[in-house]
């Protein structure tokens, strides 16, 4: 399981929902974001970027806006932003 | 505001005079490491710097001492270190960093006899070629050679001024004898001392090119915190300071580094001439050796030998044009230096067919005037 530890700021982030942004051309396909997203929001896409890597894409799951992928990505290629509070 | 320049007449040694020169020049940072016979520079300036709001730190080795003065220089202050042969060797890699990053700083080498530990308490002038070529790669460097405690004071100020003008390390190539010799040193009033500080950039911060040269071939230099967000690297870099691994960038960068010295030789090269007008034999000397060379000239003249002295105050860049033009009309050159012929070779390179002799010594003693006279007599025979 990927819940290898509970984020310190769990309380806050469970109420927010995020939108993941991916800058595909920067990705070097290390897979860190995919492997360690606590929600398993991401997967490798089938497409190649110009460097020849498969950038991640978003699955059906909801992003928690925990920013963990953003911190872990070595390439400044992925980040999350709070989604507009449409449903609440 | 109270001046911190010790205006007046003093009886101090060359090392101490050097420290006072640094204070008068506006030096605010000294990174040091003890070594005979340069230690007194550090000792004196460690007392003086805090009095003027400056900082002295004794680092863990000469590499650290040299590196620390570059870091300090980028905060906008004038910085300096002092050492002798073994420490000078350790500093060489960082000298290259100073050259390529165009970081102004002053390095004093109170030379002693080598190789290796050599004769720590006895003078020599055998690091002259190391001063020119000691760091790897091609570059130009400025080196001054003081002949007296007074010049240790004066030329330390000149060294700072040149380093600030040309954004380059400047060496003061002293020696144990001048460093430890006590003589009268006159320190002028502060307002009569000419000091130069590097120009700082003005204008748009986002478009600033930290290595785009101004009219004299030198770029204005921002300090950390000025908001220019400069990147400074030892890698080959473009005018923005960004590393570019290309032959063209290397060429451009080298042209700038060499050009800012080579195109300003008239401003950088300082020499003193004594009885050269009608000389048949020209003694070329510098530092402590110029003192005995001077005596040799006086004695030669009494004996009817037309000898003159060309004293190199700036040794690097070398006054090659001066040698070339003298070579056309004199019968020979004698280079007087406490080494086995380092500057002598340089004289030879520009003397053409004019014979060049060495009055040298492997280190530990001065060159007696008699040696110079003997060579002169043989040369003219």
């Amino acid at each position: 399981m990927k819940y290898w530890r509970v984020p310190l700021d769990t309380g806050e982030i469970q109420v927010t929902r995020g939108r993941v942004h991916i800058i595909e051309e920067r990705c070097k396909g290390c897979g860190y974001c995919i492997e360690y997203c606590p929600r398993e929001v991401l997967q490798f896409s089938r497409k190649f970027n110009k460097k020849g890597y498969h950038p991640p894409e978003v699955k059906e799951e909801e992003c928690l806006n925990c920013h963990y992928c953003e911190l872990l990505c070595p390439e400044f290629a992925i980040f999350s932003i709070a989604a507009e509070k449409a449903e609440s | 505001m109270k001046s911190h320049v010790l205006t007046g007449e003093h009886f101090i040694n060359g090392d101490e005079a050097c420290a006072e020169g640094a204070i008068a020049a506006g030096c605010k940072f000294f990174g040091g490491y003890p070594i005979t016979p340069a230690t007194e520079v550090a000792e004196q300036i460690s007392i003086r710097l805090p009095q003027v709001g400056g900082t002295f730190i004794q680092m863990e080795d000469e590499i650290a001492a040299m590196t620390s003065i570059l870091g300090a220089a980028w905060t906008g202050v004038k910085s300096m270190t002092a050492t002798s042969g073994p420490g000078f060797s350790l500093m060489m890699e960082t000298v290259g960093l100073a050259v390529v990053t165009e970081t102004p700083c002053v390095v004093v080498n109170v030379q002693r006899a080598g190789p290796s530990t050599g004769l720590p308490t006895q003078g020599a002038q055998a690091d002259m070629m190391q001063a020119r070529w000691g760091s790897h790669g091609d570059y130009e460097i400025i080196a001054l050679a003081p002949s007296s405690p007074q010049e240790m004071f004066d030329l330390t100020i000149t060294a700072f001024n040149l380093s600030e003008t040309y954004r380059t390390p400047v060496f003061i190539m002293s020696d144990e004898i001048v460093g430890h010799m006590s003589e009268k040193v006159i320190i002028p009033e502060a307002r009569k001392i000419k000091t130069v500080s590097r120009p700082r950039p003005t204008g748009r911060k986002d478009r600033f090119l930290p290595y785009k040269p101004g009219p004299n071939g030198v770029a204005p230099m921002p300090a950390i915190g000025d908001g220019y967000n400069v990147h400074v690297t030892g890698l080959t870099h473009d005018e923005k300071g960004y590393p570019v691994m290309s032959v063209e960038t290397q060429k451009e960068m080298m042209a700038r580094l060499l050009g800012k010295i080579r195109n300003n030789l008239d401003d950088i090269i300082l020499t003193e001439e004594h009885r050269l007008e009608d000389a048949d034999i020209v003694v070329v000397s510098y530092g402590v050796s110029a003192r005995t060379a001077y005596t040799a000239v006086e004695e030669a003249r009494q004996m009817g030998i037309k000898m003159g002295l060309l004293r190199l105050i700036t040794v690097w860049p070398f006054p090659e044009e001066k040698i070339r033009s003298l070579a056309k009309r004199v019968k020979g050159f004698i280079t007087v230096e406490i080494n086995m012929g380092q500057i002598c070779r340089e004289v030879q390179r520009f003397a053409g067919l004019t014979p060049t002799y060495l009055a040298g010594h492997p280190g530990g003693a001065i060159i007696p005037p008699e040696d110079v006279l003997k060579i002169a007599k043989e040369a003219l025979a």
Partner: protein
Amino acid sequence: MKNSSTTATPHPLEDLVRMDRIPHIWCSGCGTGSVFTSCLTAIKQSGIPYNQFAMVSGIGCSGRGAGYINIDSFHTTHGRAIPFATGIKMARPDLKVIVFSGDGDLCAIGGNHLIHAARRNMDIIVICVNNLTYGMTGGQVAATTPFKAKSSTTTLGNPDTPFNLPLLAYAAGATYVARWTMLHARDLTDAVQTAIARKGFSFIEVLSPCPVNFGRRNREKSLDTLRKYHENTIVKNGAHPSELDVDFNKGVILGTFVNVDRPTCDEVYRKMYWPAEEPKEQRKTG
């Protein structure tokens, strides 16, 4: 919207990165970029104006860090980032000076400077990216390479014992010592933030994979290394530095081990040496 394709929104760290130099040189799967991102995030979150910071690096893969941060930054010679940072700090004590470099640079060729800066409690932050090898030159044995691990110069295994870096920093007098892995990105970011906020010599070791030149020779892909960082580490704040050998079979201890107050080098110097009334001509040099 699901399956989002590439975004036009800028990455939140773009004001701190020299975007005209991206992509950086770090290999796919290299952890250095992750450590760097945590470091930049901490700088950003500190709220301190960027012109109050300077970054200094030495030579090596992580030594390229200074080349990518959009503040005054210095890429110096091999091993000498700390004395360069020392010069900056002592001349301008108000600046936050961060050294970002690798284990070979900081602890082997630059080891002498590391221990002396710690001894003096030089007020700088040292982020030591420890990839257990010399990555840039192709994976030679380092002072941190585990006993028996393979490298291009120890093809039959490393015969030497590696440094326990937190112990070294602690013994030399560092007043803040922590170790994380790049996977512990939040803890690492917090550690860098703590170090920025405090005064004194802060040493943060960050374990980080070099899949290309260490992993390859030791049968470890970057995700395998990350799995070890996840499964074979124990967070134990306050652990004694002598327990901190990097041995993934035993479990590698992470956490904050030292966090004490001691007057810094610049503070003590100015108090002892500068006349009570500071001379006018000082400062405003910077």
